[in-house]
């Protein structure tokens, strides 16, 4: 898998035309793979439908689920149930206890926070330290930077700038995603990389945040989801007739 990846598209899944429009737009803008946020109910059915659209448009599909647990227990329960079913698990942290639990759990891939309620952005040094040990990434959705104005955007940029400094200090991978629900809000990957300037992310790291960092997450999880995966470091190389006698 090469090129740019948008890990977070949020089309209205009830309307097939809307899904097609947004994925087609992503392909036109130069993305090689897209992650679409799926609902927990009808997960496999929706994934199959979107995978078909993506293969018709020659773009790689990444299944993703966004969890919004109310407490740590709910998060653990969801992770146990969903980890073997989707390629990317993102946790929207609505409380500090959930944020801490998500950061220290290896089954979580992405931490995301509210773009509007800034008191609920719990990405501080303690959170970053936990996340750096488990390779959990911090996700920034770019869409709010486009549709928010005035004080809301000023405060969001300020928070993102602080979080970028903390993430870089503790070596937490940053993922830039669009987070769009409508096709016209989608921008080119290079445009998103340029927006990184607004919160202190240099161009090189911003490009990594749209290409290499999401790619690492997806490849790691696809390896784990493959039938050849046994345990960390143990893979089936040959089976059945492939085995030498």
């Amino acid at each position: 898998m090469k090129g740019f990846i948008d890990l977070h598209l949020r089309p209205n899944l009830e309307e097939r035309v809307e899904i097609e429009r947004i994925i087609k737009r992503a392909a036109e803008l130069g993305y090689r793979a897209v992650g679409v946020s799926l609902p927990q109910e009808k997960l496999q059915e929706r994934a199959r439908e979107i995978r078909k659209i993506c293969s018709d448009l020659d773009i790689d599909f990444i299944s993703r689920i966004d969890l919004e647990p109310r407490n740590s227990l709910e998060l653990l329960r969801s992770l146990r149930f969903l980890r073997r079913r989707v390629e990317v698990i993102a946790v929207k942290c609505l409380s500090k206890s959930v944020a801490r639990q998500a950061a220290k759990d290896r089954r979580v891939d992405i931490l995301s926070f509210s773009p509007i309620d800034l008191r609920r952005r719990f990405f501080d040094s303690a959170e970053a330290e936990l996340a750096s040990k488990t390779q959990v990434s911090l996700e920034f959705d770019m869409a709010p930077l486009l549709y928010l104005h005035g004080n809301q955007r000023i405060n969001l940029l300020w928070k993102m700038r602080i979080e970028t400094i903390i993430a870089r200090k503790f070596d937490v991978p940053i993922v830039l995603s669009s987070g769009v629900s409508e096709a016209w809000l989608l921008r080119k990957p290079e445009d998103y990389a340029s927006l990184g300037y607004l919160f202190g992310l240099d161009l090189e790291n911003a490009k990594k945040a749209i290409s290499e960092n999401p790619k690492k997450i997806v490849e790691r999880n696809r390896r784990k989801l493959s039938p050849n995966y046994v345990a960390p470091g143990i893979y089936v190389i040959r089976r059945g007739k492939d085995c030498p006698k």
Partner: protein
Amino acid sequence: MPKIVRRRYIAVRIDSDQTIERKDFIRAVWSSILRLFGEYGASQTELKMIDYDPTKGLAVLRCSHKALPMIKASIPCITHIGASPVTIHVERVSGTLKALRRKLSI
């Protein structure tokens, strides 16, 4: 000896269902720069519109090379011109107008 002014030429692509007037486009760019960087920041950009083709949806802007990251960050932030939703992308950046036209093959 006067210092040589280093400039950058930026080609941008405008995606919209409606034809966007030249003055509306440049007003939207200035407004986005002002909202993000304020009047002091906008004064440092030395922004000028060089060329505009509403039929192709292509525009060429000139700015100071130091202000290039500001312009590149401001342009994707434009979501509407008037009432119509638009998407504006940076196509190419070059140090000379000649090279930019060559890269764009126009």
